[in-house]
């Protein structure tokens, strides 16, 4: 399986926040996106996830025979927000995402195992809103574990995590990569991963060219 981006550019308002991005990830590889605030890291991840339309270029997921796979069905997206309901219990939240995002191969940990994997054993019965900021983020990470999908798109995954959890996160990603997964992460912190591709967005936005941008 490979993830291939070609000549991607993405738009916010009237300018291209990144352009001509291209990379190829194979199984077991990770890409780390860095850059100053407002450089377009989150925008790029949303384009990769299919949540925003790319202005130009394409992002494709190909299986080992070279056939196209639907990106949305094989990708976990973890954004700035945790996608959990405050009023539901942690286990209810995770169980919901497990059955909603069930991978084709049905892989993935059980809810209890995932909670344990992020070292929060025992919080399953608490409403999500009762957790501390870092605990909430770790539960959001646990969502990636309850259903197996090969590509992880992570937007500042370690926000609010303590030192120990940073380590935990690095281990989780390493495990995912070792299992043949791929990961793309945008971050300001060192993620503790070794052997990764790097992509630096410089934040020099380019205005849209004539013709492309109708009203400029």
């Amino acid at each position, binding site marked *: 399986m490979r993830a291939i981006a070609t000549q991607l550019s993405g738009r916010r308002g009237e300018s291209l926040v990144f352009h001509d991005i291209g990379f190829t990830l194979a199984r077991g590889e990770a890409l780390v996106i860095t850059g100053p605030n407002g450089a377009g890291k989150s925008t790029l991840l*949303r384009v990769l*996830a*299919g*949540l*925003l339309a790319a202005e130009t270029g394409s992002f494709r997921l190909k299986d080992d025979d070279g056939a196209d796979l*639907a990106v*949305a*069905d094989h*990708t976990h*997206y973890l*954004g*700035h*927000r*945790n*996608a*959990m*309901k*405050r*009023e*539901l219990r942690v286990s*209810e939240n995770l*169980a*919901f*995402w*497990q*059955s*909603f*995002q069930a991978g084709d191969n049905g892989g993935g940990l059980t809810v209890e195992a995932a909670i344990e994997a992020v070292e929060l054993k025992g919080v399953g019965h608490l409403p999500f809103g009762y957790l501390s900021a870092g605990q909430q983020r770790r539960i959001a990470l646990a969502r990636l574990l309850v259903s197996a999908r090969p590509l992880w798109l992570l937007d500042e995954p370690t926000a609010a995590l303590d030192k120990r959890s940073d380590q935990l996160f690095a281990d989780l990603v390493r495990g995912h990569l070792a299992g043949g997964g791929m990961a793309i992460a945008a971050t300001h912190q060192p993620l503790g991963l070794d052997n990764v591709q790097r992509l630096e967005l410089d934040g020099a936005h380019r205005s849209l060219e004539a013709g492309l941008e109708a009203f400029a």
Partner: protein
Amino acid sequence: MMALLKRDLAIATRSGGAAMLGVLFFLAVVAVIPFGIGPDLNLLSRIGPAILWIGALLASLLGLDRLFQADREDGSLDMLSMQDWFGLVLTVFVKSCAHWLATGLPLVLAAPLLGLLMNMSGLSTGAVMLTLLVGTPAISFIGAVGAAVAVALPRGGLLVSILILPLAIPILIFGVSASYAAVTDPDPFWPPFMILSAIALFFAALGPVAAAAALRGASD
């Protein structure tokens, strides 16, 4: 998708009875109308079905504006939109169903009680229940379009209602006329009821598709 239904219902009930709120509002509507009509029980029972229908239509608006907004604010909407077209349409469908179960169904169940208050005959009450059972889901489905269109708005409440009410008029017309037809002799019940059902089916198909299209366009 069953999981989504379960989750939305859990939130609706967990957060303390959206159902109750709708029914209470419904009750309030039915309670104040007699003031205007006066003690004329005859008239009251005659316009009863219309009052129940209007009350149900307005009560369905409660909670509608938050159908997608809540999901957007906590980030869940991203995951819901990361599906193929069919999956997204199905998601909207399921969420509309959950909304109906939480607000529409209780209204249907409360109808007999209110029929009693309005001095309606058993037959008339039954007809209203039946038409509400068919019609209120249609309101939820078409309401989903308004909710999807207004998903990005800070306080969609009134705007969603404004956009939805004109679209809900056909449902109201045929719901009421079928209810009347059931009790007034020369008019046949089935034609308007069939039309109501047809509209309901049409909206059940159209609503989720249109709402999904709006959601796709609104993503930021």
